[in-house]
């Protein structure tokens, strides 16, 4: 029988697995610092976002709506809608980490980002199985390089941002970032259908006040994506019978 993997070993497995992701996290943190500063936020506010929210896409979404002077509640609702996918992450980690002490689960929730989730989920499904404390240690290991680099990159971005003259016009950095995040996620017909629907609806709803068109379009995209997936699954099951 194989010796059990100790929590300290699992921690370092997490660290090693997460290191390549820091290359992705760094430019996004940097860009958020720069764009946030250009938009008129001060150091504490930009760092407040990266420290309290730690979710790049939703931070950029909030920033974009704030430069359009959208009402506070619309900014918050739209930005949180971007983060709804994390409820799915939470649900998929719950069977593995649910028995851990409450303070550990709270800390895990705080550091649950795309990268830490994806790594941990893969490891928990793989062999050899980890004990509960090793699972928790693996997650913290995966977060150890990613989360501090997110803070540091944001700070570096703020310091660089104050040195960039406003006439450079970084207004197009956010749209490019979002398109770059979306394109690789268009893995299936359902994803493409969801994106196409939401773009069409948001353009048709351009007249709606307070950026409500965004929430309507997001909802429409989700419904269409889910419906395409349901029909395709049903068809595959029919074919299998």
């Amino acid at each position, binding site marked *: 029988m194989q010796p059990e993997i100790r929590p300290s070993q699992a921690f370092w497995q997490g660290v090693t697995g997460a290191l390549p992701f820091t290359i992705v996290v760094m430019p996004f943190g940097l860009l958020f610092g720069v764009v946030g500063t250009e938009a008129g936020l001060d150091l504490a506010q930009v760092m407040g976002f990266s420290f309290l929210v730690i979710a790049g896409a939703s931070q950029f979404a909030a920033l974009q709506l704030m430069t359009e002077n959208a009402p*506070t509640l619309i900014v918050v609702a739209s930005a949180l809608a971007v983060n709804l996918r994390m409820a799915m992450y939470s649900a998929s980690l719950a069977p593995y980490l649910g028995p851990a002490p409450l303070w550990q689960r709270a800390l895990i929730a705080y550091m649950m980002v795309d990268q830490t989730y994806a790594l941990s989920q893969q490891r928990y499904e793989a062999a050899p199985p980890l004990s509960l404390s090793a699972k928790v240690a693996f997650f913290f290991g995966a977060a150890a390089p990613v989360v501090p680099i997110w803070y540091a990159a944001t700070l570096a971005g703020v310091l660089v941002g104050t040195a960039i003259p406003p006439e450079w016009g970084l207004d197009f950095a956010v749209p490019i970032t979002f*398109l770059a995040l979306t394109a690789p996620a268009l893995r299936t017909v359902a994803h493409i259908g969801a994106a196409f629907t939401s773009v069409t609806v948001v353009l048709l709803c351009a007249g709606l006040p307070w950026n409500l068109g965004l929430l309507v379009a997001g909802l429409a995209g989700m419904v269409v994506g889910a419906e395409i997936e349901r029909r395709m699954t049903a068809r595959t099951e029919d074919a299998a019978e």
Partner: protein
Amino acid sequence: MNYTDTQIWLIVALMGIGTFLIRFSFLGLVGNRPLPDWLLRHLRYTAVAILPALVAPLVLWPPATGGTPEASRLAAAAATVAVGYATKSPIWGILAGFFTFVGVGALT
């Protein structure tokens, strides 16, 4: 941007609390009960539905040009999507978009 410091901190705080509650939801409060299939199916598409919807009006009617469509922004958006899709990498997509934006901007 026309917000008071209080409003900005309110946005940061509400987003922080809301995002934490989303992440903590099943791990912390609901326990081990599995999510219904229909809900998981919808949650899977939140990111691909919201992000492009946020961007589309900015690409077609950029505020920086007063809402007139402009070649360098349209070309940059197309290049970002094409390269991001082909390489499956956000970083390559951003680089492609950035250089297209600067390049076409310099030509026009």
